[in-house]
Every structure is written in C-alpha cells, then in structure tokens.
C-alpha cells in the first residue's frame, strides 16, 4: 500500500501544510511519496525530500504546472495513480480545486477535510460547519481525500527521500491571466501560533492598524470575520471560518467579532480563545476561555501598552 501526497508549495518554498498532510499519511501507514508539481520547483522538492517518513519525491517541473491549474494537475495525478491506494492533499485552494477532479476521473468518492484517521479506510470529517463529526468508511478501492492541516502536527525534517522526475507535461485549456497575492511580513494564517482577528466592530479598515500593532507585538497573524471582509476592511484571504481559512492556533484573540456559526467553524479548535467585545450577549463568549467585556478601542491600545 502506497500513499501519494500532493505537495503544497509556491515553487520556491514548500508550505508547512505538506508536512502536516504527510503526518496524516503516516497515520494511515504505508510507503509515502510526495508529488511536487510546479515550475522551477527544485527548492520545494529538496525540502520535501527531508520530510520524515517520505520515501520518494516525484518532481514534475514544467511551465505548464507553474500555476497549479486543476485541469493538468489532475491529469498528472491520474497518470501516477495506478501505484497508489491513497491520494492526499491539504484542503487548500489548490487541493480543493484539484482532488475532486482526480476522484471523479477514478470514479471514487472524495473525502473532504479529514481531521482524524481511524484506519486505512475509515476517516473522520466535520459536517454542518463543524457542528457534527461524521465517521465515514470508504468502499472505494482508492481513497482520495483532502486533509484539514490544522488537525495534524507537522512531521520533522530528518529524512532523505530519493528524487525522481516525471517527463510528461500536460497542457491545460485553462489559461493563466494574472495573480495578486496579499503581501505580508506576518506569519501565514494557517501556521501561526497566535492569531488576532477583527470583525465588524472594528468599524473601518484604518482601525485595523491597532490590531496589526497588537499582532506585531505578539508575533501573530491577522485574521478577520466575513463581516470585516465584506465591509472591505481587509482582503478576503484573511477570512477565518467555514468558507475561509480553518485555523487552530495556540491563542486566538477575537476582537469585535460576535461569533456566528460560520466564524466559529473556522477557529473553535484553537487551544485558548480570547474574546474582546462590548456586547456581553455575543455568542463568542460561549466558546472563549477568557472574555473581556469592553470597548475594543479602549482595550486594544491598553493591551498594546502592556505588552
């Protein structure tokens, strides 16, 4: 039994999510191979070779894979699939885009956002915005699944896997036009130890400056609720929740966030939750370990002074 893991990378760097998916693969048990598909992705492949438990890194290096388009990436995985009983990726935008295509072409059902491995064919996944956990047994010969990386701890980097290249470059009808990425010196939301999140209560985009100051003092990432994104305070890739990023940091500080079901779905597995809100009835206080009923415009500057 062998497992194929689709690496998550931006060509130059392997993302920490890959080490977490490898941890999930290790829990299934078997030979673990990592596929690094991209353009000029030698550095990412090198980092993947070191992941503990990985025995082989398969590199598909071509300009056609530069932007991780689901169409050709899916076909590439199908071409490799004969040797594998399990095909895994992170439940990232690339994984969610690509793996359902792979599953459909293999005529197997996909299991999304796996948070627990019971056995080689039985997995646990959240449904209804995390308000229920389903234990699902797959009847398919091949298991195709995306893994919620916040539910697994990254494997160490003590290995030295062999490296092989695949030659075929598969073109896509889809044409890449452009990309705009949010530039930030702060840690990535998915891998931050501390996250400071703001909601509608922030009032404006400019007011997020005080949260950014707090984040910088704590070495934290900045997140947001849907209300803050919809109001245009911050870019959408900062959204934490059912349809945004799912995070589980050591400390999550929710500022001016009421705590709607959809937001809680993205952060309620955080180790310690702090809520700062002036509404004592806000649902966020029901999941917060430490709640402070206060006006955030008084509390956050005071907090910044104390840290």
């Amino acid at each position, binding site marked *: 039994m062998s497992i194929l893991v689709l690496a998550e990378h931006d060509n130059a760097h392997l993302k920490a999510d890959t080490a977490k998916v490898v941890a999930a693969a290790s829990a299934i048990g078997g030979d673990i191979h990592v596929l690094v598909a991209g353009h000029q992705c030698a550095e990412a492949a090198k980092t993947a070779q070191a992941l503990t438990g990985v025995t082989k890194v398969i590199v598909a290096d071509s300009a056609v894979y530069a932007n991780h388009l689901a169409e050709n990436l899916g076909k590439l995985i199908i071409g490799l699939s004969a040797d594998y009983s399990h095909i895994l990726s992170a439940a990232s935008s690339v994984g969610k885009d690509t793996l359902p295509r792979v599953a459909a072409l293999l005529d197997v059902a*996909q299991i999304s956002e796996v948070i627990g491995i019971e056995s080689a064919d039985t997995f646990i996944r959240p449904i209804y915005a995390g308000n229920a956990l389903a234990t699902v047994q797959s009847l398919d010969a091949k298991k195709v699944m995306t893994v919620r990386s916040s539910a697994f701890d990254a494997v160490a980097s003590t290995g030295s896997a062999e490296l092989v290249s695949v030659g075929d470059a598969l073109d896509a*009808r*889809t*044409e890449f036009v452009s*990309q705009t990425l949010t530039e930030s010196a702060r840690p990535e939301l998915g891998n931050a130890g501390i996250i400071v999140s703001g909601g509608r209560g922030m009032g404006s985009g400019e007011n997020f400056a005080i949260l950014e100051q707090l984040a910088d003092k704590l070495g934290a990432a900045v997140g947001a609720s849907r209300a803050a994104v919809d109001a245009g305070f911050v870019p959408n890739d900062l959204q934490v929740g059912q349809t945004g990023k799912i995070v589980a940091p050591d400390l999550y500080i929710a500022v001016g966030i009421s705590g709607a079901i959809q937001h809680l779905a993205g952060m309620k597995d955080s180790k310690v939750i702090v809520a700062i809100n002036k509404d004592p009835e806000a649902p966020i206080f029901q999941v917060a370990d430490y709640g402070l009923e206060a006006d955030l415009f008084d509390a956050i500057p005071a907090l910044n002074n104390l840290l």
Partner: protein
Amino acid sequence: MKVLVPVKRVVDANVKVRVKADHSNVDTANLKMALNPFCEIAVEEAVRLKEAGIATEVVVVSVGTKAVQEQLRTAMALGADRAIHVETDEELVPLSIAKLLLAVQQKEQAQLVVFGKQSIDGDNNQTGQMMAALADMPQATFASEVKVEGDNIVVTREIDGGLQTLKMPLPAVVSVDLRLNEPRYASLPNIMKAKRKPLDVHTIADLGVTLKAHQTVLKVTPPAERKAGIMVSSVEELVEKLRNEAKVI
C-alpha cells in the same frame, strides 16, 4: 448561451443543528430549510448574465426528494426560467450528484454550468469540480468575478493568499464564492410568477445513469464541547491570565 445552475436544499445557515441521540445522523426534522447560500449566489450570477444579454436561458436543477421543488421555485422567483428536478429519496455522495448533473447538462447542452462552491451541510466542495472532470470541461472554482468574452470566460478566483484570474474556453464549469455578488430578494409578484414556470421531473433511471455505493457513514457524533471560560474584568487581568495561567504569550 444556456446556463445551468445546480441548486441544493439545505438547513438554513442560521440554524445550529444537533446530532441525533443514536448518532445515526444530524436531526433535520422540523428545521427551517433554505436554498444553499452559495447556490443563491450562483443563481444571481446566471440571472445577471441573462439581464446583460449574454445568457439566453437560465435552467436550475436539483437532485433530491420532492421537497427540493420548493427551492427550485425560489430559484425561479429569483429569475431562473425553468427547473429540472431529479427525484430520489436516497442520500447521494457528490460524485453521484455530479453524474446526474452531467446527464442533465448533456441533455440541455448548457454552455456554462454555475455551481455554489460548497453546500453548507456536507461542506464537501466537490460537485462542480467532479462534473467538470466527468464532462472534460475546464473549471474555475471559488469565483469572485465572472466575465464572458465571446467564446471564452474570464474568472477571478479567491485562492489562498489572494486572487487569481484565469481564462478558459466555453463550455466550462464555474463555482462561486461569497464575494461574487449580493443575491436579490424574490418579490411577491415574482414568487407568484415562479409558480407557473415549467418544472420537469426526472428519475435517475430515465436519465440513464447507474450509480454505485461509495461510502458508509458509520456514525455522526457531536464535536467535543469547550468547557466554559471566565470573564476577566480588565486588560491587566487578561494579560496576567494569558501569561501565567494559559502561558500562551
């Protein structure tokens, strides 16, 4: 250009579901049901394409029990021209739904299929991608902007870290994200009009699709409860607790 929009009936987004005592499933009896919010955005986008003179007809389709006709009527009240109901009492995995939708797409020869990116009950985020794969069509998932330019479609997608723009030839599949548009409300006259719009009912058999079993749900359990926290009275106390009790800063 004909646009096909698959829609799903789900528990209303504001309802917090409970797991049944026997752990067989979540209890959805007597809960408020609604059109999946992402499907609503998909319908809105298709209707806007029609209003812009790009789409000639908007067809909505749903797979499920007789009750889904209620959501198909809602979609028609929002501006869809007609509806197709694929009737089944079985709970189907996204792959099976995708196979049924493919049969409908081929029957209708729709050039563009607009999906919601995920349903808020199953949280699978699969069906659109699967139908695209089965149809061998290009796909643009998590769309926040859609523009049709002749025989091509240009889509801006929400990806981890920012936005990405792709261009692809039609026929194609698009799945929509929250930011794409603000769905309209159905007016009373439109709700009345929707009652007279055509709604065709099909069975799985008459679509000529054979489905197979893919997975068994062994149990559905409630997530671990977080134990109640404490309220602190000042910022000083909060910092002290985080430093010395929780030891997280």
